[in-house]
């Protein structure tokens, strides 16, 4: 159940999202703006967007020093000064 990462995944996710948006627009025109069907379709778009955003955040390249200090907070380079 590993998350797919990398540029290909971002592209695939982007296609999924734009497909979902198309589906939501179709549902809106077919069933109406206030319809349950439109709400369900837009909810799916929201779910995909939120997930894409979380994936992006967790895959974001961390500052190398920050990453190093996360693993070794007691290291000399990671000392913090309170002045």
């Amino acid at each position: 159940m590993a998350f797919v990462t990398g540029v290909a995944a971002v592209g695939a996710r982007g296609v999924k999202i734009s497909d979902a948006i198309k589906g939501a627009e179709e549902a809106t025109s077919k069933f109406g703006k206030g319809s349950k069907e439109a709400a369900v379709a837009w909810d799916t778009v929201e779910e995909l967007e939120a997930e894409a955003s979380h994936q992006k955040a967790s895959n974001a390249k961390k500052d190398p020093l920050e990453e190093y200090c996360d693993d070794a907070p007691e290291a000399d380079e990671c000392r913090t000064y309170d002045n």
Partner: protein
Amino acid sequence: MVSAFVAGGASLMGASGAAGPLACGSRKWVGVAPHAAGSTVRGYAPARAGALRMAVAVEGFEKAPGADLSEQGHHADAMIATKVSDVMKQKGIERPVIIGVAADSGCGKSTFLRRVLNIFGAQVSKAHTPQGDFITVICLDDYHYHDRKGRKVANVTALDEKANNFTLMAAQVKALKEGKAIYKPIYNHDTGEHDPSELIEPNHLVVIEGLHPMYDPRVAELLDLSVYMDVSDEVKLSWKVQRDMAERGHTLENILASIESRKPDFAQFVDPQKKKADIVLNILPTQLVPDDKENKYLRVQMIQREAATNFAKVSIFDEGSTIDWVPCGRKLSCSYPGIKFHYGPDSYFGEDVTVLEMDGVVEKLDEMIYVESHLNNTETKFYGEMTQQLLKNPTAPGTFNGTGLFQVLIALKMREVYEKCTGRKLSVN
């Protein structure tokens, strides 16, 4: 690794002298009635019989109440241990503290979660359900009855109560609270389908986050602290524009349509939870700057329920008074547009609350320290702890406005609730 507990406080009587841990989370929740289990869920026969999840017998575990309520069988392999887990003794868990966090931004509230982890000095795994030495974070989307396709067929949004198995949710959260391990369903947001259930052990602190931690009274009454993140429409729109415009095919109209069409279900099933939450983080547009269209500046309120007894309310100057405070001036020079605080009692949907409010930005170290020194009941363990925590994630969104500041305060309150409910004192790193 969480620092060693100070053993002295590990009695059953809490620090306040009241009926200690027993008083935590024993509040009765009224108002929102749970739907009749499973009765209104419209299902469909799966295309392949094999799609039904078969419950495998696991020693020491039995099928969880509510496991059979998903008509498509997505929760059939949900289980609860028959006995208290060995982990309780191994980890020296006094009694699992359960905290609910409600928000509409999907699971993995990374910034808030990181701040909480920092306060506890804890780390969690990067798995679907982050688990660590001290904290476990459960995404309540795991209790969706249907997979994504199923919701389309049943014509329900994920916001709808009919889409969520509250019976199973309550049974499993209760089990964890009682120190029993569970096999919890997994809803995979990538595929939109359910994966086989995963083993979750009880932990010192279990955070349940999602759309409905307080919706069903059976779950809500298990919570030792409930937090609701409320974002105003205007700010929500700006955030979504910033989040989604980069994606192909997203226009402002689409974003607006998405917000609007989800609103009725949101108003019916999610929004009401804020009325009973212990703490509401209310994020509004600023009043300091006119025409802040991108909502670069924020006015943030921390609405604290008087009736919540598990934590002391953060205040300025003196509890019960009403204060409007502009810290900037001769002593403290502030960056644009400045900082404005308000504190005072109020009524929030018929409940007595105290509201601590911050508008503007705190950008400099001396501004943060100055503000920290004027807040009461923050429950920091040393002077400067709040500021230090804020600066641990300087690049995280909200660090310099009320969201960051109040997220740190809420994390401090979570620590306070933990200490009150277990009678233990945590030492700081």
